[in-house]
């Protein structure tokens, strides 16, 4: 009995430590966003802060006068549009390609897969310069389409890598059964593979969403105005030449956390189930 109790206590202590580890920095983010600048810069730091202010949030959502804050709204919308498009498209494109690599035989398969994965290994930073000329010549600067294409090029190799081992581990017997029943290859893909690989698709979809939501540098370089500017760039704009407005950054940060949190919360079950990558056995 003692051992049991000791173990339970140990569990709860660990759980509490985990709670602190995960929660405290995030809590500070929220607190910073509702504390006045002058309270944030008083020493010694007083916690909880003497005044609460929702001014920053109201600025962002309801105040068209504050240019920076209301520009943030536009950037959020752009981010959502781009991320949603990238998620859907990368899964579609990636699923097709993964199926091809996992199930079809054709010449040049291994080298092709290799090239695809190699593009995943280059730091994107470096291809910006020639990429910019290309995009500029195509007249595609400052468009959401460009961002979607760019992020797709980062997400698809990753989706393919994870999904193709996922597909490969799904028993061939399922496919053969479907073929005997008269399904074409595409029908097999749709009716057999995708449902079985759904957790994997959800997991990679979430990763694709986060990649696109996160991405800062390409958005900075390839966009200029609110036509295509995304949220990370908008948050970076809270830094001026000599001053950094941490309160505003925290506010933008809290708002920017909401969509990813909502998505991971909704798909949590599939996320947990889908992360086994190539580990699905019969």
């Amino acid at each position, binding site marked *: 009995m003692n051992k049991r109790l000791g173990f339970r206590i140990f569990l709860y202590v660990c759980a509490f430590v985990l709670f602190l580890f995960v929660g405290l920095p995030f809590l500070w983010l929220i607190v910073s966003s509702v504390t006045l600048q002058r309270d944030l810069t008083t020493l010694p730091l007083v916690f909880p802060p003497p005044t609460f202010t929702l001014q920053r949030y109201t600025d962002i959502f309801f105040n068209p006068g504050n*240019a920076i804050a209301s520009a943030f709204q536009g950037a959020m919308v752009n981010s959502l549009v781009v991320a949603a498009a990238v998620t859907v498209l990368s899964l579609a494109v990636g699923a097709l390609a993964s199926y091809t690599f996992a199930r079809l035989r054709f010449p040049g398969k291994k080298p092709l897969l290799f090239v695809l994965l190699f593009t995943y290994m280059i730091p994107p930073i470096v291809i910006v310069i020639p990429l910019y000329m290309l995009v500029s010549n195509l007249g595609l600067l400052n468009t959401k389409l460009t961002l979607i294409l760019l992020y797709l090029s980062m997400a698809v190799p990753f989706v393919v890598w994870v999904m193709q081992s996922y597909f490969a581990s799904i028993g061939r017997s399922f496919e053969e059964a479907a073929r005997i029943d008269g399904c074409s290859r595409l029908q097999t893909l749709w009716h057999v593979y995708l449902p079985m690989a759904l957790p994997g698709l959800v997991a990679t979809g979430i990763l694709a969403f986060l990649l696109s939501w996160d991405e800062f540098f390409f958005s900075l370089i390839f966009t*200029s105005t609110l036509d295509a500017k995304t949220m990370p760039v908008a948050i*970076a*704009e809270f830094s001026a030449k000599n001053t950094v407005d941490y309160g505003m950054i925290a506010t933008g940060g809290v708002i920017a956390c909401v969509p990813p949190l909502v998505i991971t919360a909704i798909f949590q079950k599939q996320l947990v189930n889908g992360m086994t990558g190539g580990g699905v056995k019969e």
Partner: protein
Amino acid sequence: MKKNFVPAALAGALISLLVLSGCSPDKSKGPVTLNALFMKQAGYSEEDVTSATKEFEAAHPGTTVNLTFVPYESLEQKITTSAEAGTYDVVLSDGPFTAKFAKAGLVQAVPEIAAADLKDIFPGALDATVYQGKSYGMPWMNDVKYLYYNKKMLKAAGFDAPPKTLDEMVSMAKAIKAKKLVQYPIVWSWSQAEALMCDYTVLSSAFGGAMFDASGKPTLTSEGNKKALAFMVQSIKDGVTNPKSTEYLEDDVGNVFAGGQAAFALNWTYMYNWAKDPAKSKVVDDVGLALVPGTSEVASATVNGGQPLSITKGSKNPVEAWNYILYLTDRSFQKKYSKNSLPIWKSLYTDAEVVANNPEVVAVSKDQYNYINNRPKVPFYSGFSSQMQVKIQEALLGKKPVEVALQEAQTMAEGLAAQN
């Protein structure tokens, strides 16, 4: 005769066509769209620029200007990636970028400025746009560092006027410290960042030491440089410089000074409004502004933080772009918005309206601008700056003696200069 006449006439016609098409492109072109890249949150506000741009468009029918504003830190990357493609015709650049962009061919040389105008611009500000004798932009936003001092602390220590030399400043600081008015009287922005190079430029110029000579060769082991770095190290050792200065940026200097924790500080124009703002400052009535103290070599020395307007290489409308730049740098624009950023024109500093906007700052600037020094105008300045910051910090933190740090810096700079 007839036979020779026709080809000659044809040739003459062709030549005149070529010459004509080169001479007046804007007359024969249709509507022109310019794209301009500016900075957020400093100097002229977005509203200032936007309304001035609308006036420009009204004065030049057929020309539209699209404006983009980015944070200061992103300016360099935006210009670097887009210069060749000419995404923006006009860009707000920065003094230290001129040499680099000029050598790399990312910005175009601009037409000569009228001689009468040239005389009316402070030479130091103008110099920031020149590389190897050619001009690559027009000064637009001005900024220099001033000496800020706390009048109350000085008076309490028995001083009625700000120091004229650096040595005087140190002895005043010692007196203030001895009277226990503040623990560390002087605060600087000596963090490992460009801010350190700005302060170092001030001090090395004050002691008569240039970092590079006219031909671009490093002279970091000169007497002036040794004195400057030794001055910095000694002021920490003497306890008159706040030791946390080695972690401070301009913002931190502002916090310390406006919080009443320093008697002397070097900072840009923006700290003036900050220190005078009752909501943000504890020393509103005690703020003093003066020339940066000099030495026996020079009466004063300060660093140029101004930002010029340049035309990118890929711009398809350089003539219109230059017209736009001339409009923004024109005396009337700069006079109208002088509250937000001080003009580049000497004559405006005696203009009653400009003076009325900010009497104390204008009065000091009028003199201070005669002592502007630019950071080294070498193409490899970026690489040099980041490594030089390390060396200076090593000396400041006591990790290396001054001579050794400077010698290593010299070797480093020679290596960089030789690479190209």
